[in-house]
């Protein structure tokens, strides 16, 4: 009874007694949600373009962060480090396309999916073999303390991160809608022949999307890295993008964005108001459960289109 009260009633009471606080939590959640959106976007890009469900997205975040932080620690100026890391990510994308995707083309998707799990392991192992597994602090000189906006406290860092991520998301959206390559990518998603007719070879397209996904990962890596420190757990955090995808639908960019925000906000609110009732640490799974529950009602996700099966 008590438990039920704590679970069902008390949180609402809390929320209504401290609306400002709730609002702050909400905004905080939304801001961190933007990061999820960003990573989720990486998934969507690759899935749309190559039908590959890239489980390695999380690993790519960690990988990028590791290299960037690593280069910084070697004393390089940040812009050089950034350039180098970008180079690494591009190289990585091409290697993956050449070594993994090309040999596996036309294999069932599930196989490709498992291959990306392989990539995940490889990247985790490789990155840490080179840079070690010690936690690296990454200081971008952005103050990590709250400031007040009209009575609401908001963490500056989150603000900046959100802005950066937001811009990137916007940029990508534009890239997809407007540019020729972007349209080509969308074409590939529909069918590969169409893509070829657009005149861009499939492997190039794949190399491109993986590069883009890599860069997205880089940004996410830097941001998270700066906030939480660059370490293995980043990969896990990045996995949060998976439930986001389920929520938003694998093929929908807006879905990825909205989904990210929902998950981010939901997670924070749950953590702050509900977790005490059931013993904390729920952000490990809350996102997944939320998505799972959601799935039962709308299997194709928020924005995914309904599939008509034919025989």
């Amino acid at each position, binding site marked *: 009874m008590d438990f039920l009260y704590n679970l069902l009633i008390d949180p609402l009471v809390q929320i209504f007694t401290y609306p400002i606080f709730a609002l702050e939590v909400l905004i905080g959640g939304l801001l961190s949600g933007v990061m999820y959106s960003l990573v989720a976007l990486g998934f969507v890009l690759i899935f749309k373009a190559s039908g590959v469900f890239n489980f390695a997205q999380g690993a790519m975040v960690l990988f990028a962060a590791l290299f960037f932080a690593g280069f910084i620690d070697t004393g390089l100026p940040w812009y050089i480090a950034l350039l180098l890391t970008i180079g690494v990510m591009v190289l990585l994308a091409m290697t993956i396309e050449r070594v993994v995707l090309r040999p596996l083309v036309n294999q069932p998707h599930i196989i490709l999916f498992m291959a990306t799990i392989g990539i995940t392991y490889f990247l985790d192992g490789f990155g840490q073999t080179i840079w070690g597994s010690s936690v690296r602090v990454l200081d971008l000189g952005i103050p990590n303390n709250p400031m007040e906006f009209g009575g609401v406290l908001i963490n500056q860092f989150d603000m900046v991160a959100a802005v950066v991520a937001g811009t990137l998301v916007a940029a990508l959206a534009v890239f997809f809608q407007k540019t020729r390559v972007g349209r080509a990518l969308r074409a590939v998603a529909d069918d590969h022949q169409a893509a070829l007719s657009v005149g861009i070879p499939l492997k190039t397209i794949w190399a491109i999307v993986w590069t883009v996904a890599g860069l997205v990962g880089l940004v996410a890596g830097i941001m998270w890295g700066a906030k939480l420190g660059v370490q293995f757990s980043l990969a896990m955090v990045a996995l949060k993008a998976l439930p986001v995808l389920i929520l938003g639908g694998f093929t929908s960019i807006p879905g990825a964005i909205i989904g990210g925000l929902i998950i981010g906000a939901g997670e924070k609110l749950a953590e702050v108001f509900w977790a005490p009732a059931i013993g904390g640490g729920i952000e490990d799974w809350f996102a997944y459960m939320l998505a799972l529950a959601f799935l039962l009602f709308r299997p194709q996700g928020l924005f995914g289109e309904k599939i*008509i*099966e*034919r*025989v």
Partner: protein
Amino acid sequence: MSVVADLTDINQASVAAHARSIGDVVLSVQNISLSFGGVRALTNISFEVREHEILAIIGPNGAGKSSMLNVINGFYHPQEGKIIHKGVERKSMRPHEAARRGIARTFQNIALFKGMSALDNIMTGRNTMMKSNILAQALYFGPARKEEMEHRKFCEHIIDFLEIEAVRKTPVGRLPYGMQKRVELGRALAAQPDILLLDEPMAGMNVEEKEDMCRFILDVNNEFGTTMVLIEHDMGVVMDISDRVVVLDYGRKLADGTPDAVRANQEVIDAYLGVGH
């Protein structure tokens, strides 16, 4: 029930059937309309299928033939209309329910289970009748084993019937197209259906393969008295083997009658026979 007994049952059934030949209505399709999103696939289609007959549904591509079959075996759920099968009315029903009520089918593009042998594919057709529970199977003991053997025996009769002994244990993926079609037919027959839906059973076959398939279809109808609804493009074949023909065009029913009647029907000639065939 023992499958052997069971087998003789159908034989007798079909003997009787033969004395009776084409019987009364087993399936009646009434005012079926189906659409995907905005797209109309079927508009107010009605026709009846009588026991032991071979009914052909013909029509140009996109006439809604396959959709019609999909509605009959519960794969698509029509927005309007109903289907009365063996006196039981249903608006919509899951495919597996339809199957358990005795509706089996084959597919336009072969839908075999690629990872399994021809025999196993046909055995899956018996699954609905296999009762032994998981524990019994895990022990592979007593009834479970006996059941397995009996159904194997039954399937062997089908294999013999369709003359695919030589490929019994070959993974279906490795079989030539014509053979795969036969195995698929075998899988459908294994369920001892009272209505068999054939979606372009002869698509992409060469002459001999077509002749074989025709023979099998007629033999099945003759031996087991199975009622059949088939979609076929080859007009020659259709006119030869079917008792009645339903003509669809753009989701509407143009005609419904004996091959000759249909052949004579002006509308049909314009819409279908005129073009190419």
